[in-house]
């Protein structure tokens, strides 16, 4: 038997035997270095995909015309920007549709990513003196397209969470869509360029349930792409959806 194995360690005595203590010190140092290095490596290999910003805690007033149209995707538009509206928590802002066509001010928190803007509302829309605005320009069809990408919830995707895509976020996205947040398709082409489309049913009606099993994964589907304000919408045939890998 090796001499160092001859020692007998008893934990409740004040000191460990010398050779055992030496060994433990070495082992613990190596372990500590290994563990800390692993921490650094893990932090590097697990990227945060989004570059979205959520101005958490900064509520301010936004002004514009509420647009809701048939798909119940409430937006706030002015000549410069076209905000998509979502509610607090994992809920939509459907109640804003009550102010369709009205010029309002709205307290909320800004969410931005890739040039897209979303407002988390923080109270009801307040009518302004301008009152009703004219109707929005009619939607323009860009043709039927087959697109590949991922169905996401725009609130998390455009900045509240990071990552807000893929497997780990799927349950959250499903919950957000169930809560009435407009589903968004993040289409990716082969070069990696992305486009964002609000998803509707074939006739421009809101759809949610039919989409849930496809959320948070690579999917492909077919539908008419329509420009509406500064957003694109995709009149998707849910039956055309299929899994398309990552």
């Amino acid at each position: 038997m090796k001499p160092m194995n001859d020692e007998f360690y008893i934990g409740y005595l004040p000191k460990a035997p010398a050779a055992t203590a030496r060994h433990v010190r070495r082992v613990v140092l190596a372990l500590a270095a290994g563990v800390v290095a692993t921490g650094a490596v893990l932090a590097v290999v697990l990227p945060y995909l989004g570059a979205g910003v959520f101005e958490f805690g900064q509520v301010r007033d936004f002004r514009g015309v509420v647009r809701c149209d048939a798909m119940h995707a409430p937006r706030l538009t002015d000549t410069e920007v076209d905000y998509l509206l979502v509610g607090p928590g994992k809920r939509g802002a459907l109640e804003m549709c009550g102010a369709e066509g009205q010029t309002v001010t709205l307290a909320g928190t800004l969410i931005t990513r890739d040039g897209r803007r979303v407002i988390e509302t923080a109270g009801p829309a307040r009518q302004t003196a301008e009152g009703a605005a004219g109707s929005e320009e009619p939607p323009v069809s860009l043709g039927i397209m087959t697109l590949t990408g991922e169905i996401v919830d725009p609130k998390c995707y455009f900045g509240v969470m990071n990552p807000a895509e893929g497997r780990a976020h799927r349950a959250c996205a499903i919950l957000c869509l169930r809560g009435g947040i407009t589903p968004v398709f993040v289409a990716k082409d082969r070069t990696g360029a992305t486009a964002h489309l609000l998803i509707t049913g074939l006739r421009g009606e809101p759809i949610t349930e039919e989409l849930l099993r496809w959320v948070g994964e690579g999917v492909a589907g077919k539908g008419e792409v329509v420009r509406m304000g500064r957003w694109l919408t995709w009149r998707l045939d849910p039956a055309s959806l299929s899994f398309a890998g990552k």
Partner: protein
Amino acid sequence: MSTVYAAVGWSRQKRIYDLTFGGVLVGYLAIFAGVSVALFPAATAETILIRAFGTAAFLLLHVILAIGPAARLDRRWLPLLYNRRHLGVTMFGLAAVHGLFSLFQFHALGVLDPFVSVLVSDGSFTRLETLPFQVFGLLALGILFLMAATSHDFWLNNLSAPVWKALHLMVYVAYGLIVAHVAFGVGQMAGGEWVLVGTALGAAALVTLHLAAARREAATDCEAPSQAGWVTVCGVDEIIDGRAKIVAAGGERVAVFRNGETFSAVSNACQHQNGPLGEGRIVDGCITCPWHGYQYLPETGASPAPFTEKVCTFRLKVGDGKVWLDPRPLPPGTRVEPATRA
């Protein structure tokens, strides 16, 4: 061993153990968070915390599972085993923080109760990619909770050692569930390939360690030859003074100790947590367990007063230069006159 329960029976070594461990843990969390913030300034604090605590818990579980077999293979690891339960309870704490933050981040403030959402939101068992990894994590957390809640010796005594041990072997079930949680969760995300590779390497290392330790133990498990009901243990000189030889007899491991010129046999399983008494020593006239230092008198298998632990004893005789064992266990604490060299 003690006669009254205290939250923790502190000793100098336990303090050093916990301080070192706490330092390494804080170091890990700090490095993880620091590198994340430096590389990905857009990352949100919640996500960093979820990841830091989740990965810390999973890593720590590997360390916890490795200590046991490592100590069987090389006794110098025993100091790490001594206070392993503090690692276990901390691991549950880390996993719970990870779980609670995730529950809030991904499942709260929606149209479903967060606990319902965890169970139903993610999807289905019909596709591998949509196995609801949250459920695996939740089940594992449940097991870890039970283990952490019963980790104190109070429960060990009140549940009885076999029940306690069985409960705490569930750690392997929890480990399996966590592997599934990781593989079907973050393993499917960007960068997840590396997590999958790391998880596979970790599993391979743990299996190898456990197999090596089991092989080492199996070597002592071939039944000794018997003669008219007596089993040969070994030659009298083969046992070093103050040490034991472990033999398998009657389907049980028995530790045969030599104390000067006398020999005594007790069950090899310590009453505390089934530690291998036969790998212990005789210290101050008492058989002393290598794991946490519980002590037993060689001739009675009972802990010296005021302690109350007892293990089974066995009859021995010495003849033909050999030690012989009667493999029928006597009730725990039964006095047996030590056999002496004729």
